[in-house]
């Protein structure tokens, strides 16, 4: 009798644990729990800046988007210098990779670089290497591997990560999170203040817009 109870208990425990593992591997939401305001950023980039900063900037972007490129080069430096480096704000990049077939692969590559602690270096390299034509090969698998090589990453590890599609679901999750928040263009920004107040807008808007919103929040 006791043996039967123990055996049944073990079987039930295996089923429960198995179900949890299976469910969590299909649903990335179970893997973490990081949120900023209403945005689940757990599958997004690592946090750029002080994680305890009172303001979080969530950027929904695509590595092949010219407007994102323009914002990265023209306005992000001022936002970084005046708000992120000073600890007033931090930034999370969430992929809205929709522009071309190479867009989601580039996003996956950024997370393969994250495995080796080089997410932001890789992110910056992609935006520094962007070419005007979408899907012209500048962000294909071979070039993404070459970028990893140029950053002195462990190429064997990086290549196997990229080829296996390890972060495919993570990128898809980010895209669905962006869509859930009504992002219909890249870049779209959500700025979350200390009292969880949120301001959402689209386009690679000038530094003055960010300053005005964040100064009102602090």
């Amino acid at each position, binding site marked *: 009798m006791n043996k039967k109870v123990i055996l049944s208990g073990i079987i039930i425990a295996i089923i429960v644990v198995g179900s949890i593992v299976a469910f969590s591997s299909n649903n990335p939401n179970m893997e973490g729990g990081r949120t900023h305001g209403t945005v689940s950023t757990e599958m997004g980039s690592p946090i750029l800046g002080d994680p305890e900063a009172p303001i979080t900037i969530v950027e929904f972007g*695509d590595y092949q*988007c*010219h*407007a*994102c490129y*323009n*914002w990265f*080069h*023209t*306005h992000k430096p001022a936002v970084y210098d005046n708000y992120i480096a000073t600890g007033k704000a931090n930034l999370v990049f969430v992929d809205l990779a*929709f*522009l*071309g*077939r190479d867009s989601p692969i580039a996003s996956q590559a950024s997370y393969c670089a994250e495995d080796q602690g080089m997410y932001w270096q890789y992110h910056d390299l992609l935006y520094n290497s962007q070419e*005007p*034509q*979408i*899907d*012209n090969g500048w962000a294909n698998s071979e070039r993404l591997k070459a970028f990893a090589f140029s950053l002195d990453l462990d190429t064997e590890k990086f290549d196997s990560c990229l080829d296996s599609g390890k972060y495919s679901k993570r990128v898809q999750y980010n895209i669905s999170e962006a869509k859930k928040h009504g992002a*219909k*263009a*890249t*870049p779209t920004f959500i700025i979350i203040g200390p009292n969880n107040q949120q*301001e959402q*807008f*689209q*386009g*690679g*808007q*000038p530094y*003055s*817009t960010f300053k*005005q*919103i964040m100064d009102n929040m602090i």
Partner: protein
Amino acid sequence: MFDTLKIVFSDIRYSLLAILIFTIMLVGLLLLSEFIFIEPFVAGHIPQGTELGFILIVILSSMSALVLPMNFYRIKILKNSKKKIGGSVFGSFIGAAAGACSCGPIGFAIISTFGSIGATSLGFLTSYELPIRFFAIILLAITYYTTIKSLRIECKINS
């Protein structure tokens, strides 16, 4: 040439139409190309490296504002063929289409609706934005020239 322009734009209706076309095209294209924003605040900027794109938008809007009312005049006053308006409308249209940056909401909607075919066509429009605008301006310039020429002849015959 200036006499022909004078004939058309001395009528206040055509001057107003030109101003309306210029304003709608300029504001519309600057919004689509993210040179100006209206939300959350009105803001404008010309990112480094996009100066030529900005200048082409101003030229395209000006040319459309000049050529379209002249062709309307041709049709309305001279009761003539509608052949030439095709070139000006087509020039304005493809110039505007080139400005519909694929990163923007229009691109998003098209890619979401038409999938890879939409992505390919928008990728083309984005990649060749500047050459397409140049082509549109050349088309409008040709239409302008032929319209001026035909108006001059038709005015002489009619007068």
